[in-house]
């Protein structure tokens, strides 16, 4: 077998038949070459990490293994036997299970009902449920996977929902478990617990494939790691014989600065003051609960927290997309909360890089130049009165693209065709070019490649050093810690506490999980 990377695995522990072999997998989507001749061997009873930037092709590769896509070329072997995987049904029969990034669970069903879903085995549900109950008890005992079988899935916290996904796969007889970015939604504590579970799965002879872009996770629990870059497999390493720096370099293809270089902040006057801000959703639940803080000129204030703890709602309130239920948002002395109108808020001198690039930040069917004026399209410089001067729009985009090094630098290309990083640069250019006094920015580097991350971080620091105020919301704790001058931690809609940038990561992690000594 012509496996280019077989020399990597010399250890006798893994000499048995590999669990999965991918040989020469090739997949194109139109012009995009998502997987280029990828060959990979996953040893039985190991945790194998696949790391790479967004768009590197790792999810595509796993989707091929799980039968979502058919490879254009290549072969898959499961336990040494050639396998034809045409659908996820085939994959499950071959003992492959997948835990998706976005859970595939039926919220109103109980844990038990979810687990048997797709494996009912007959017209009557009763026997399957009884069998599942016994099986769940066994799995809980063996792998520390305790979940109440009669709980309603929709009411469980995310960490437990993920466990249900794992249970579902195991119940269907999965020998190999694929996890796609499993820690994105977890607190550090929950992630630790997940890793313990994965370790136990491995010890019992299961094989785990972990897709992630977090280097720390790879270092913490994997036995082997494969690095993908632009559709190609660049290397497979034994985790114990590599380092974070080496992996990062392999991912990007060059050495990158993981730390952001910045001087000390020189905070000036208060630019934004949020006072007792509360927002209730239609069910009356306070999603933002009595939040107060200030942002001063010349500083970056970071809001850390696990996704879904009110950060998104907070951004929407400040940017005027939604109106506060109570409380005030005072921007340069004016209460902008009562405006509840993004356009007026913008005119006051506030710029907003939204969390959700695809759905908020730009319009994917518009060309780049049109997305590049979103929110500022009414500006007189883009055409007098009702007119929209196409030439001015395109020229503006052209110069912004040059300044922010957007590639390809074509203002007429559809926004959807740019990579995540370049889309983010288009948005950042649009918001920064108006010279705002306050920039609020959500998940600035989500789904953005490392090269662009560096660029975006540098820009944010520059903005701060120009004496502007920046409010940064991110679920990436590393990002918050390296950029912010002060860190606020949000949990369940409330600010759990404030820390400075140098404070202990564990302490912030505890706050993110809602454990606090100084909670109000």
């Amino acid at each position, binding site marked *: 077998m012509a496996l280019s990377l077989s020399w990597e695995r010399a250890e006798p522990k893994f000499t048995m038949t590999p669990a999965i072999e991918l040989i020469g997998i090739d997949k*194109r*989507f*139109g*012009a*995009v070459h*998502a997987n280029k001749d990828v060959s990979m061997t996953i040893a039985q009873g190991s945790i194998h990490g696949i790391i790479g930037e967004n*768009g590197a*092709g790792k*999810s*595509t590769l796993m989707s091929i293994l799980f039968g979502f*896509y058919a490879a254009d070329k290549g072969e898959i072997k499961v336990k040494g036997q050639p396998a034809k995987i045409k659908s996820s049904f085939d994959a499950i029969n071959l003992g492959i299970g997948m835990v998706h990034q976005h859970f595939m669970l039926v919220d109103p069903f109980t844990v038990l009902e979810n687990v048997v879903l797709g494996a009912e085995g007959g017209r009557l549900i009763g026997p399957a449920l009884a069998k599942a109950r016994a099986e769940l008890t066994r799995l809980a005992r063996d792998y520390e996977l305790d979940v109440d079988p009669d709980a309603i899935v929709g009411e469980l916290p995310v960490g437990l929902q993920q466990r249900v996904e794992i249970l579902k796969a195991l119940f269907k007889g999965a020998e190999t478990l694929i996890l796609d970015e499993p820690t994105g939604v977890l607190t550090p504590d929950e992630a630790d617990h997940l890793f313990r579970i994965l370790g136990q799965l491995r010890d019992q002879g299961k094989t785990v494939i972990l897709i992630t872009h977090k280097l720390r996770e790879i270092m913490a629990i994997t036995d082997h790691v494969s690095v993908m870059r632009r559709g190609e497999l660049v290397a497979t390493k034994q985790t114990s014989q590599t380092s974070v720096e080496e992996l990062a370099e392999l991912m990007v293809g060059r050495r990158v600065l993981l730390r952001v270089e910045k001087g000390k902040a020189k905070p000036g006057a208060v630019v934004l003051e949020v006072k007792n801000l509360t927002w209730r959703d239609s069910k009356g639940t306070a999603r933002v609960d009595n939040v107060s803080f200030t942002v001063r000129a010349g500083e970056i204030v970071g809001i850390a927290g696990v996704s879904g703890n009110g950060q998104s709602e907070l951004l929407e309130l400040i*940017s*005027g*997309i939604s109106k506060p239920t109570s409380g005030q948002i005072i921007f340069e002395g004016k209460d902008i909360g009562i405006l509840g*109108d*993004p*356009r*007026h*808020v*913008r005119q006051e001198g506030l710029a*907003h890089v*939204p969390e*959700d690039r695809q*759905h*908020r*930040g*730009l*319009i*994917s*069917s*518009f060309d780049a130049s*049109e997305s590049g*004026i*979103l*929110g500022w*399209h*009414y500006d007189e410089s*883009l*055409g007098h009165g*009702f*007119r*929209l001067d*196409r030439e001015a729009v395109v020229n503006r985009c052209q110069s912004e693209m040059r300044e922010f090094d957007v590639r390809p630098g074509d203002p007429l290309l559809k926004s*959807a065709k740019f990579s995540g990083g370049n889309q983010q640069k288009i948005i950042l250019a649009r918001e920064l070019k108006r010279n705002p006094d306050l920039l609020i920015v959500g998940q600035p580097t989500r789904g953005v490649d490392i090269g662009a991350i560096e660029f975006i971080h540098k820009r944010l620091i520059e903005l701060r050093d120009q004496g502007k105020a920046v409010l940064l919301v991110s679920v990436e704790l590393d990002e918050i810690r390296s950029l912010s001058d002060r860190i606020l931690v949000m949990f369940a809609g409330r600010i759990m506490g404030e820390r400075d940038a140098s404070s202990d990561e564990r302490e912030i992690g505890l706050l993110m999980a809602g454990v606090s000594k100084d909670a109000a």
Partner: protein
Amino acid sequence: MANARGELPTWVDIGLIPLLNLFIALLVAGLVVLIIGENPLEAMWIMLKGAVGSIKGWGYVLYYATNFIFTGLAVSVAFHAGLFNIGGEGQAYFAGLGAAIVGLSLEFLPWPIVIPLAILASILFGAFWAWIPGYLQAKRGSHIVITTIMFNFIGASLMVYLINNWFRPVGKMAVESREITGAYILSFREIGLQFFGVRLPSTPLNLTVFLAVIAVVFVWYLLWRTKLGYEIRAVGANPEAAIYAGIKPDRIIIIAMAISGGLAGLMAVNEVLGVQHRLLLEFAGGAGFVGIAVALMGRSHPVGIVFAAMLFGLLYQGGAELSFAKPLISRDMIVVIQGLVILFMGALEYAFRPTLAAIFANVED
């Protein structure tokens, strides 16, 4: 990687796919003709000859196309705002009321004043009839598809009542108004005779066709060269992003529907002021629905709509000739073809895409 559907070159997307869909629609229609017991190729030839084989044929084709351009543009403007306005029929019909009220009551004014006023009234009445569903959609969440269908029925009933009880001259049997003499838009035949001494064949083609050209340019300019057009397209493409940008989707929905209805209303100018010179029952004659097919086929772009409207004009005129020459084939055949085009353009739009995408991906290799 995100787009599993595959990207196609633009000319395939806006050129080849519509033509392919049309071809398949004609093929299936040909099968129907075959089942009826006629020769499809002969039928096709008669249609083509009847439509573009004579000046008279062309006159009819352009006359039909005028109607379809208005209704097609109407559908497309709403479509760009993410709305499916299938009430063009009712809006055009209701607009006839405006044309007739102005045309009949302001007859004492000279034509350069009364004609623009009548056109304006058509636009306003059509716009009003679309504004109500637009308002209900924006403020009450009533689905635009349901409300516009309902407004077709409401409009139809209302018009029957009004024409019968208000407009029908005493003692006249036919359910129609008296002749509109002031706001009289000349036909090409009349122009030829009066100004050039040329005898053109008798067709309903009139000066409104130039209004259609203006409408085409207007819609293009509105959508791609004004801030309002930008906002309309933004709301249609991505309401979330539009809200982020400070655009109020409610407002845009109402405005876009009013513009859409106004465009549909222009159809009444062609029919009431240009052809019939009176308000009569059901003068819209299904053109509002054809507009949906036209907009779909023309990819909601004004230029595409012109071509699609011409094509449907050709089908209509050719179909009339065909039913005349072959009594076995009724005019309903055109409705069948039209339905098939809608089926292939709308419902099965993506039926051929994957295959084409695969072919073109291979070609590029």
